[in-house]
């Protein structure tokens, strides 16, 4: 059993009895309290997650505005149109660019900070943990709006600092320049969500036995060696999960992008979620819920593919490690 895995049915219902030999019905009955407690969440998830998700798969094959009773089954027509829509491909590419740039920065930065804050001798650790976590619990829309002022070329504090330090000679329109808009949002996104990755890493660091560090110190290991030879190998299995969670998060940036740039200027920061929203609700003209659903489905399948690929890669790496240890 891997570290940290919880098996509620065994813990709560097992009462020392072996699982083997009991019927499914018996096991379900024994674990009835678990299912009862899960029920409210399951019902809500069914209503607000599973049902809309499944329906959007169906909508993807319709020519439908979303508000009329006139739904026409068009088969793969929406997907055919998507493939020739350059704005779709631009948004698709932008989403992955965002992920490729922002995720490594956030994950590595969070690990470094977690390593520092995990040091029990650092008395201000809890204070900084709170400070770094604060943006996580703040609404993305509120942060987005505030950041438009922070990055404003007119009296925005960032530009003031740049001007005062002579780093630039005229204000930079971070959110109005196609070259900087998306990356400014990415920076804000990293800042906002960095705290959650840090907490994940801190949780992972708890599994490293302190006696290993003590033994290594007795052997004369320095701080770098401690992390390289003990910490990183021990938290390695958690990295895949943290990266996966961060990747999924990097594809959910609608609130920030919409409030900071609206996808502009001229689509320069339009990521997939904004593209889907624009087609489903936002643009001038009749909404195209069917078309937007097709885009969402296509994108969702890609993300699923990436997750599976990552899982497969992790399994291969673990197998290889196990094989190496055995040999």
């Amino acid at each position, binding site marked *: 059993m891997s570290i940290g895995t919880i098996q509620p049915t065994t813990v709560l219902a097992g009462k020392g009895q072996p699982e083997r030999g009991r019927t499914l019905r018996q096991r379900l009955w024994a674990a009835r309290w678990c299912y009862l407690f899960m029920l409210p969440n399951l019902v809500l998830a069914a209503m607000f997650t599973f049902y809309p998700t499944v329906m959007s798969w169906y909508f993807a094959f319709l020519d439908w505005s979303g508000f009329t009773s006139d739904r026409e089954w068009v088969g793969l027509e929406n997907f055919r149109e998507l493939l020739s829509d350059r704005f779709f491909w631009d948004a698709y590419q932008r989403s992955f660019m965002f992920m490729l740039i922002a995720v490594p920065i956030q994950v590595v930065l969070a690990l470094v900070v977690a390593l520092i804050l995990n040091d029990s001798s650092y008395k201000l650790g809890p204070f900084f943990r709170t400070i770094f976590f604060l943006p996580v619990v703040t609404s993305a829309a509120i942060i987005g709006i505030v950041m438009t002022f922070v990055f404003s070329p007119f009296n925005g504090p960032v530009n003031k600092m740049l001007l005062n330090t002579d780093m630039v000679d005229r204000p930079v329109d971070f959110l*109005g320049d196609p070259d900087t808009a998306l990356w400014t949002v990415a920076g804000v996104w990293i800042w906002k969500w960095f705290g959650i990755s840090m907490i994940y890493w801190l949780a992972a660091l708890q599994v490293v036995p302190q006696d290993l560090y003590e033994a290594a110190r007795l052997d004369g290991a320095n701080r770098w060696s401690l992390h390289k030879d003990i910490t990183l190998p021990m938290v390695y299995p958690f990295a895949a999960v943290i990266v996966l969670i961060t990747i999924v998060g990097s594809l959910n940036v609608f609130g920030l992008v919409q409030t900071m740039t609206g996808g502009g200027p001229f689509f320069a920061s339009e990521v997939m979620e904004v593209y889907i929203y624009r087609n489903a609700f936002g643009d001038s003209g009749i909404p195209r819920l069917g078309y937007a659903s097709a885009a969402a489905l296509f994108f969702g399948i890609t993300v699923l593919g990436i997750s599976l690929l990552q899982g497969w890669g992790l399994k291969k790496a673990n197998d290889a490690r196990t094989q190496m240890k055995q040999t």
Partner: protein
Amino acid sequence: MPVNINRRRFAQAGLASTSAIALGSRSHRPSAAQDATPGSITIPDSGVELPADDITFRWIDSGDLKALFYNEFHAAYQEAHPNISIEYDALPWAEINQIVPIGVQSGDAHDIFAMPQDIPSAQAVAEGWVAPLDDIIPNFAEWKDRFPLGSFMDGVHVFDGKTYTFPQTSSKRYWTMTFYNTDYLEQAGYDLESERLTWDQYREAARKITEQGQGQYYGVVFGGQSTDRFATFVRNLGRMAGAPAGGSLGFEDIDWRTGEFQYTSDEYLAAIDLLVGLQADGSIFPGSLSLNDAEAWSQFPQGIAGMILEGPWVIPQWQRENPDFRFGLASQPVPNGETVLPLAYEETGSNQLWVYADSPYKNVAGDMFSYVGSVEGQVAIMAATKGFLRALVPEAAEIAQESVELDPYASEALALYDEQLRLGPMVPVRNPAASQVALERRPLTPDLGQLVQGILAGQIEDVGAALEDLQSRANAELDRAIAAAQESGAEVSRDDFVFANWDPTQEYTAEMYE
């Protein structure tokens, strides 16, 4: 045919048509539209049988100017009927566009709602979203007769002989009036009360203001993230400069005389050049591309720029929240040459509201609309908004002009509308079946506003090619939407989008449709 008007004559005509009230109001002392006297509305007994139980009546629209009236009206109505509590949601259009369809689909829509912008009225009627007013407003025929001839149009208000909505106020207004910071303009040597800025003067004034601002303020500001603001700038300036056009069923910029789009006209191109020139001069407030429209105009009173082109809705908020701000209102920049055309508008009425078909309180809605469409109600609208909203019932407009103290800015705006706007043709008035085209319309991406944003952001270099492409896509989309409407059984053709007898300088009257 374009009329040639000498610039001086144009200015004189403008001044002449501006009422004495307007001329006398040039001091631009902020007045308070929000000070409309509460308690001045008396709700009459219309004879409608109203619920005796305690009920909550829900109402959603976009607020703005009309909220000045509705806040007052709702308070009076609740006072007259203490068992009726009114829940008024005055929300941005983006939220209305989402809340109303979801409400209808879940059977829980507001009792009275503004129609979402993307939903053609004909479709909402066909889908059974809304209730006809004929059955719920008492003495409906008499009530309807108060409105001037042509106020109720097939395909706009009337469907299959039933009336579903009514024009509460006139839609005769435009969105590119020049609002200016009086202090900055005076300092730059301009007096917009006595002269109108030509395009060249507008650019020069913006440059001078920027120069005098020394980085503290700029010539002009745009809410450029709301790309429709750029589109409105280009089309209104281009149209007035000699590329007449109108819009109907969601298709904009059509020269009704030929049915062709105007995107590639020299005048539209010149209007874009003007924007590019302003940017090259450094006269546009930095960050204009990342501000939305509301952010731009709500920051304007803080002194960020000298001029902004906007609609009348900005005035009450500025007066309320920035009572010391000295500002003026003038025509949009007029063309450099002598060809000056009025702008065409669609009189679909503004601020239409609809009654939810499944509302249990349709009789309450009927009672309320009975008052809003009455002479007293129409006068109250003008009184509460100090004239920012204009009554459609002629008798009410006359009474209001004599007895109600209009805001000086409102008087100026009304005078500008009379001078610079003409009623244009409307496709569904001649052929109600053509409304199906609106339902089939797909957005042009990028559209005119998005293209202009791309040009200013430096992402589009060949402006001419981009406009050619837009023209071609607009033609293709109109043809496609018409074909799709035909497939749905609508008898409509491209000929419905041609009004060969349209004269942009004249009103397009009911007889001209025949």
